[in-house]
């Protein structure tokens, strides 16, 4: 009896348990979305129904919250992606001695509990916006404060995403463009930004999702407004309805479709790269034949 087989079995069992832990609760919740009882119940499965999805659609608060969440997500992305990009470029150019301090300041929102970010945002902007009645009337709103509060730490996420990509940037590319007569802004638009494009896409997606899901900061900053997540929290606090399960099913469905299409795109890219490599090898062979 090989100990290797035992080891393998144990690893398999452990992975099964791990993913059981990860997916189990979601599966159970998913089942309750299609079961008729008003209390979300997976077992016994009484009858199949789609009523909870209809209830969800007719839930005014939730739909309003969803709209706000999308507006906030777009607002946060509009601030955080350019800020993160600018911050990463400054990070790559800043003097060595100042870099540590700069890094600490820019990354601190990630280490600060979201609750504190929410509180500080509200306290600060309440007074700043109250300087004039006009600004208070126009901007002292939950949606604005939530965008500002979330942008403070989502910008830091974006910064990390851009930094990771920038470390792989070949400085010779920049110099080559300069040498060919490009100005520094041209280098940015023609060379650096196209290079960073994948990171821009990741930053937009991750920034939006993070904003969409955020609870801790939003709870405080949203004031009298609501987002999907705060409405959800209110629902969960009040009790439980299978409509929430239905929402989760929709989210999981969308995310699985997203994950699959991401895989497909990735696969295609890989195929393209492989084809390019094959071409290069062919070209190489031709070249050697020509020199010989």
């Amino acid at each position: 009896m090989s100990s290797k087989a035992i080891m393998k079995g144990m690893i398999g069992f452990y992975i099964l348990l791990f993913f059981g832990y990860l997916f189990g609760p979601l599966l159970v919740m998913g089942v309750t979305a299609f079961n008729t009882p008003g209390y979300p119940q997976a077992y016994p499965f009484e009858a199949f129904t789609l009523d909870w999805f209809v209830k969800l659609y007719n839930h005014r608060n939730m739909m309003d919250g969803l709209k706000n969440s999308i507006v906030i997500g777009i607002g946060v992305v509009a601030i955080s992606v350019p800020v993160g990009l600018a911050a990463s470029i400054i990070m790559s150019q800043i003097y060595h001695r100042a870099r540590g301090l700069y890094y600490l300041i820019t990354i601190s929102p990630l280490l600060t509990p979201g609750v504190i970010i929410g509180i500080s945002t509200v306290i600060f902007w309440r007074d700043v916006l109250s300087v004039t009645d006009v600004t208070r009337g126009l901007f002292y709103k939950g949606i604005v404060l939530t965008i500002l509060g979330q942008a403070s730490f989502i910008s830091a996420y974006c910064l990390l995403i851009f930094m990771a990509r920038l470390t792989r940037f070949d400085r010779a590319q920049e110099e080559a463009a300069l040498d060919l007569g490009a100005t520094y802004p041209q280098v940015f638009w023609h060379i650096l930004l196209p290079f960073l494009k994948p990171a821009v896409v990741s930053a937009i997606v991750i920034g939006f999702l993070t904003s969409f899901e955020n609870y801790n900061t939003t709870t405080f900053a949203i004031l009298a407004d609501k987002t999907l997540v705060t409405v959800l929290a209110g629902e969960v606090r009040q009790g439980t309805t299978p409509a929430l399960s239905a929402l989760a099913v929709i989210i999981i469905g969308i995310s699985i479709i997203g994950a699959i299409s991401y895989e497909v795109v990735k696969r295609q890219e890989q195929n393209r790269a492989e084809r390019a490599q094959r071409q290069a090898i062919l070209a190489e062979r031709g070249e050697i034949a020509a020199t010989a």
Partner: protein
Amino acid sequence: MSAGVELDHVTVRFGDFTAVDNATLDIRGGEFFSFLGPSGCGKTTILRTVSGFLEPSEGCVRIGGQDMVGIGPNKRPTALIFQNLALFPLMTVAENISYGLRVRGADRSARRKRADELLDLIALPGQGDKLVSELSGGQKQRVAIARALAVEPKVLLLDEPLSALDLKLRQHMRAELRSIQQKVGITFIYITHDQGEALTMSDRIAVMSDGVIQQVGDGKAVYDNPETAFVASFVGENNPFPGTVTRADQTYAVIETAFGPLRGRNPRGLRAGDQGILFVRPESARLGAGSADTTLTSTVTNVAFEGYMTHVYLKGAGKKEIIVTVGRQAAIDIPAPHSAAPINYDADLGLVLPEGMLARE
């Protein structure tokens, strides 16, 4: 259109480190000029100073007689070919080549036309729409050259561009570079640590070491008449014999070495009492005894047969290794290892130079 490049007492410092020390040099328009030296000798720093990525700490660079101080790399009439080529991976071959025209505001059709012309010049016609990643190493090389030539520079700067290629392709590209240079007729400044590249392609070579230009001259001058111990030991193989000069006149000097007094030419005018080094190239030395002041006694340690020549490794006084290269035509018997074998040379082919740092192997 080509332009000369003058370095006028150029010094470049990074903090406390002096990368280039007081370099003065006049590169003529249309010349193929090489900087040759080991890595870290400052040759790349000179190239970057000429292209404008660095400003000299002291002195100035003139291109076509015009002082370049304060003029950025994007405003200089130079184009640089990078060691890793730095082609833009997200652009096609044609977009790469015409990038310099794009930033100058040329319209699309003019850019395309110029790219096609250059693709013909580098023998890659019709390949403009390929991605850079689809090209072979040699093709990328040629695209990099075309991209640099597209902006019609007066001076083309090349930073060891062949180092990434394999040997066969490298030798092929040498000839190609040389022929492109003759076709376009502009000044080429070439950086390399490979003396074979420098000797075969260049009109003139500057040998550098530790930030100092040791010698400037054509390949033959640098090889046959090195002016410093560094050049003698870096360019080609050489056997050094350090010692004290005992007698000297205008033409010859006798130097007291571990092998006794030996004689050689005295181009630097050393005088009795000076410390010096006698250099005898492996191919200038012969097996067998000659006159007393050009003969060394030694023992064969190893024989390496390389086909068209044979290297004989010998050990003499002070355990010093000496190499003698015997050509095929010499038709002499190579002594067996461990046998004693005297060596002699023509006094005119021995060279006594002032003491100085040798190139590290």
